């Protein structure tokens, strides 16, 4: 793998890392498997592309994207809590609806950002670094800020209520918390992060495409699990950093796989979804298989 490919993978890892933090918030903290992200990532990208190409600041684009993502997440939360639709199905419904909405926002299925000022250009101009170095650095900083903000939030009164809602909803209801509102807010916050990540992905790749969100949830889960396995999840702070770094490891692993060349067989980008799915299955079942092996050995 070339150095260029490596910095590219690290950049992607940090950009998508903000999405992974959102997935961590729903999947691990709220215990709410949320597939909305497959729609809210391109939602953020679409809004970012439209805002930037109409001549506004790329930073404003990120903020607006996050706001729209929050609304999308709220819709899923409301479908689940108020209308009693199963969480998975509720999130799939929002995801499907977002497909149409994203095309409406852009007016077409994709929008190019070539030649437009992105956050990377502005940061490179400000720091004087080459764009290939400025991008991973900027996104790394933003990823770390996202981790710190989320860490701070989860230690506030409200954040602790979010944690408790995922951990023991009956207990926290008896302590006077409206779990419906917490779920609506939590899924909203998660999708705000995912959409913000989408806005940055579009700026990093130079285009927004309505299909760019396919498989976001799987990549997010894979990153969360890789992070937990490699860096551990003893405390909330550690688990958050593990999720961000898990995203980087995931993207580097994919870059490595793509650079592999086994004679006639070589991995193509279209194989990535299969590899990711296998990776997630492996990561999800590994702890159980390990336990079983240890159990057998203990009784042999």
């Amino acid at each position, binding site marked *: 793998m070339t150095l260029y490919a490596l910095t590219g993978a690290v950049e992607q890892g940090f950009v998508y890392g903000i999405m992974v933090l959102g997935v961590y918030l729903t999947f691990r903290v709220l215990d709410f498997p949320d597939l909305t992200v497959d729609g809210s990532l391109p939602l953020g990208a679409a809004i970012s592309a439209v805002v930037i190409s109409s001549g506004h600041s790329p930073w404003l684009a990120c903020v607006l994207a996050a706001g729209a993502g929050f609304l999308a997440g709220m819709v899923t939360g409301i479908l689940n809590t108020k209308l009693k639709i199963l969480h998975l199905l509720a999130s799939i419904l929002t995801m499907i609806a977002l497909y149409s909405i994203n095309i409406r926002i852009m007016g077409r299925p994709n929008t190019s950002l070539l030649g437009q000022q992105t956050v990377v250009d502005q940061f490179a101009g400000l720091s004087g670094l080459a764009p290939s170095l400025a991008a991973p650095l900027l996104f790394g900083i933003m990823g770390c800020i996202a981790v710190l903000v989320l860490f701070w*939030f989860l*230690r*506030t*009164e*409200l*954040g*602790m*209520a979010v*944690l*408790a809602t995922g*951990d*023991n909803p*009956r*207990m*926290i*209801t*008896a*302590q*006077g*918390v*409206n*779990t419906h509102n917490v779920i609506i807010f939590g899924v909203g916050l998660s999708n705000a992060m995912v959409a913000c990540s989408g806005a940055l992905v579009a700026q990093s790749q130079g285009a927004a495409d309505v299909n760019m969100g396919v498989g976001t949830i799987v990549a997010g889960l894979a990153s969360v699990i890789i992070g937990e396995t490699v860096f551990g999840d003893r405390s909330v702070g550690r688990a958050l950093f593990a999720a961000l770094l898990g995203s980087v490891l995931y993207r580097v692993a994919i870059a490595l796989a793509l650079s592999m060349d086994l004679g006639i067989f070589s991995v193509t980008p279209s194989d990535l979804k299969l590899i990711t799915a296998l990776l997630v299955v492996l990561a999800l079942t590994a702890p159980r298989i390990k336990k079983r092996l240890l159990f057998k050995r203990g009784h042999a």
Partner: protein
Amino acid sequence: MIRARHVTKFFNRGEVNEVLALREVSLTVNEGDFITVIGSNGAGKSTFLNALAGVFPIEEGSISVADQDVTTWPEHRRAAFLGRVFQDPLLGTCPHATIEQNLALASRRGKRRGLKRGVRKADRALFREKLSMLGLGLEDRLTDATGLLSGGQRQAMTMLMATLVRPKVLLLDEHTAALDPKTAVQIMQLTDELVRSERLTTLMVTHNMAQAIEYGNRLVMFHQGRVILDVSGEEKAGLGIQDLLERFHELGGDGCVSDRALLG
């Protein structure tokens, strides 16, 4: 403190397996009452407690707490008035949160939760002091995950959490039934101490007749969704298990008192 009027509750209303769980139950709980609630399985005692807590809406009747009509209030809103401890010792605490975080969650019951720090320095001192009253050594383990504790330790914590913000009424739903006998006695002693020292108005559902007789100033017996016995004061104090069984049969009980109720 609590006024329940003609509370009626059906489960699966309009279906073949419809159950009339509460039939026009009326009960007034006075301030300072420590009421033990007994009855056989399916008598409606836990259903009544859950109806008070707002776990489900009732079909008919009204419920007021501290002179506020709460009949239409959702569970989380009524929590401002009520401290609750469940039968399952795992239900009262968050396993992944630390001991101090659990207590902090309970210390904001009925208050707005904002972006202030969840666990503050002043809290910790208070939590240490309260935990040391349990005599379980938990005051030195504030940052341990609550999931590491035993069922009895978690139930003791839940008792503390239910009373951390003074509740208008404390609702105990067979809170010692799932514990081993020794731990059950300890939790019951802790309950009695807390209720007496804080003068808490309390409703305690129990399966255990001896417990129902020993504790509290008033005893209420449920049968088939109705209150069939309500004794207090001197009369309650003079009550024995044999009397209680006789009264139960007299008042239409069909003899299905389980061994558990007698021996438990």
